[in-house]
């Protein structure tokens, strides 16, 4: 089947088998390896990307479901020079250890801050509660998101 979608600002038209997931499409077809895979069942959030601004588990979306969508991956979030403020907040606040959950966490945080520029701690926890991190115990991630919220005024 054919799908047309925008990935990191570039509109693409691709021929893929119908069973292809968005994750496969990103990793295997487009070699965008920043999107990670673990459970392949929509539970862990390692494969989180933004589709039309919403955080989705790319492993549980078939290519057909993203027809026409505007997809943002960690590669698209990262500026040519340096880091996006949310990424920088994760670095400065020790919001990552092994880094495997990190792209997904950062994109989830981006979706949250786009939806709600000034979330409370409880709102952050509720929103981020679905993504798994095995290394940090989440405290560093929470500190990173809170730091990004504080800085929110200085970036758009």
């Amino acid at each position, binding site marked *: 089947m054919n799908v047309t979608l925008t990935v990191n600002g570039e509109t693409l038209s691709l021929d893929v088998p119908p069973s292809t997931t968005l994750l496969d499409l990103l990793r295997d077809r487009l070699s965008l*390896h*920043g*999107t*990670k*895979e*673990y*459970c*392949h*069942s929509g*539970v*862990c959030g*390692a494969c989180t990307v933004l589709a039309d601004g919403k955080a989705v588990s790319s492993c549980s979306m078939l290519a057909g479901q993203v027809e026409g969508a505007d997809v943002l*991956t*960690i*590669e698209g979030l*990262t500026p040519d020079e340096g*880091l996006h403020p949310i*990424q*920088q907040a*994760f*670095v*400065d606040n*020790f919001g*990552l*250890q*092994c*880094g*495997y*959950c*990190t*792209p997904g966490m*950062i994109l989830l945080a981006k979706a949250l801050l786009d939806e709600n520029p000034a979330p409370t701690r409880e709102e*952050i*926890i*509720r929103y*981020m*509660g*679905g*993504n*798994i*991190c*095995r*290394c*940090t*115990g*989440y*405290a*560093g*991630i*929470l500190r990173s998101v809170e730091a990004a919220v504080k800085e929110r005024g200085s970036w758009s």
Partner: protein
Amino acid sequence: MCAATGPNVTRLVGQSMPSLEAPDKAAGRIEYMADLTVPNMAHAKVVRSPLPHARIVSIDASEARAMPGVVCVLTRDEVRADPEVEEVYGFVYRDAPLVAMDKVRHQGDIVAVVVADDVDTAEAAAELVDVEYEELPAVMNVPQALAEGAVQVHEEFFPIAPELRPIEGTNVCHHATIGCGDVEQGFAESDFVYEDEFLAPPVQHCALDLHAVISQVEDGQITVWTNCQSPFPLGRELERIFKMPARVIIPYVGGGFGSKSRDRIECVITAAAKLAGRPVRYILTQEETFMTFIRPAYRNRMRTGVKRDGTIVARHNEFWVDVGGYAISGARSANNTLKVATGPYRIPNARVDCYAVYTNKPPSSPYRGLPTTQHTMSYEAQFDRIARDLGIDRLELRRRNLVRDGDIHITGDYLRSAHSHECLEQATEAIGWNEPLPVDPEGKKLRGRGVSCTIKYTLTPAREMSENSAEVALVEDGVFEVRIGTVNIGQGSDTVMAQIAGDALSVGLESVRIVHSDTYRVPVDSSTTASRSTYHMGRAVVEATDNLKPQMLEAASQLLEREAASLVFTPEGIAQADGSANVTYGELVERVGSPLAATGDCVVGGMYAGPDGKSYPIASTFWTFASCAAEVEVDTETGTVRVVKAAASATTGTAVNPHSIETQLEGGIGQEIGPTLFEQLVWDDGGQLINAALLDYPLPTMETMPEYAPRFVDHPFEGGPFGAKGMGEIGSVVVPGAVVNAVYDATGVLFHEVPLTPHKIIEGLEGQR
């Protein structure tokens, strides 16, 4: 010996800094195993046993082989037909065949490997491999495996590590004892004797970066890329099995927690690659990780004799570890924890018996300090029972019994740097131990606090030897390349090594580059496990710089035509002390014409001299002490337990990267909340694992996160690099004990088994009524 603690102006060591690779990780630019490819790579799918125990009657792979796109199928027939391949591997216990030979020993045991041009074809072809089994009775847990007349999982034993001692004719693949004093005499002298039994079920590590391997066998040379934690032992094992040189390359690893500490797929995929004549990649699925390595089931029967004032007089501790179908990892880890099973307490008469038992569960591996975690839960929970029974304050009871510097441990070691009392005080203070607990006006939610203390060893050889080396080289661009075998698994090892090397050379971080974990590019290292790297690799790095410095001075002295003795090291290069001449590191290496390099070793083990002039064996190069204090809320209606606050304090020696230590502690606590409250693997009566998928196996999330208070006791440890020692695993070890005790404090019920599920809590509360 390393001159690791000489006078030095510390600039990098002691500073909190994010890991060097953090920006690349945040940008998603770091490559893990699943991101690597090699040209002409084929893909593997493993055919696994659906049964926990069965004889293989026949394997018919002809249909699979005939499928277009299939390269080859590896079964026992191909392994047997290759005279150059050894059938069985395991560098601790040699009991795992590359693929099942006569029988399968656990659900998920490896029966065949299908190699195809792409993953989908490999998967489809794997379905076509027809295996006929004759089911055998299975022993699914330790009591069944120890029962009279139980079927033997292995008829013969092949321990490699010298300390492993099986009991012939049984399923016990290892039994060992450690002791001191006279236990029976001790019990006779006790005023009270307490006996308890504690249990913990298996869980899985759930490292997000799935265990994976790419293997290539070409022109008599093996190259393996894998996210295994032990590259050098793996390389040696590959060389033994395939009788050709092997290179092992480890990229960045997305967590392991022990699940990747031993080989379970590398050797078999190499056999498949050899047969295929092409590089082969294999990535476990999340479900398959649950059948590859798990944290074993654990049982501990503990008798403790005390005086009326709470002084411990005697302890007999027997523990059973379910190593599963293969002892390639589990038997030795169980044995290692003999050293710490009695805890950080002075016990004049003690005996510990360790039993590692084969069953038909998947093989077990360490899990962040296993089973020290379960030992700690057991002796700490019993301690609170004793305190309550004797009417002695829980902290006071611990203070009366905790070890101090200069005590002789059960192993015969003379303990140094044993700041166990400080850990206890720090952890309890950090959660506000003496502050009143909030009271629920409706009386439905109960609050309580609990504490636990532990002692942990690090892997230590039985005789004096070098456990690892490092190489430091001044290379073309004036940068110092630090070549280490330590696997960067998320613990921040590159950063810690760069801090240590930078200070040892008096240069900034920008002048240091880390090259890690490629067995052809870095010198030998035993493994990245047991919190060992900061200390061991750190010492080797310091010694390498010590060996490099004279070479650099010599070269600079010739270039500058000055006496070597009159030259000093500066952050930029080497200079005449009076400032009259200098050469930068870049110029130095350019003028010399080739890199200057030196290696350093970290020699450990053997004996050391105690203050009394006697020699003591070194059972652990260093001991780490820690305490955890936790506050919980128990909902008496739903049975849910919430950990509200958790503080942990650990002895770290000099804190090389303090904030990184704090985040390691937070991570350890957060992870262990799962096995303490809700994680457990469950098998049905037919021996089938019923919750191998993440959908049915909840993990801790941001919502289960307590408020953390990480602390550490920062006293330089003599002999450590700049006074540092290891601590990577300690945060998790102290959690279950503190939480079980906090629930005891809240409810008055002492639970003897984790996880503390709502069902168990409600049952416990009802039993009390």
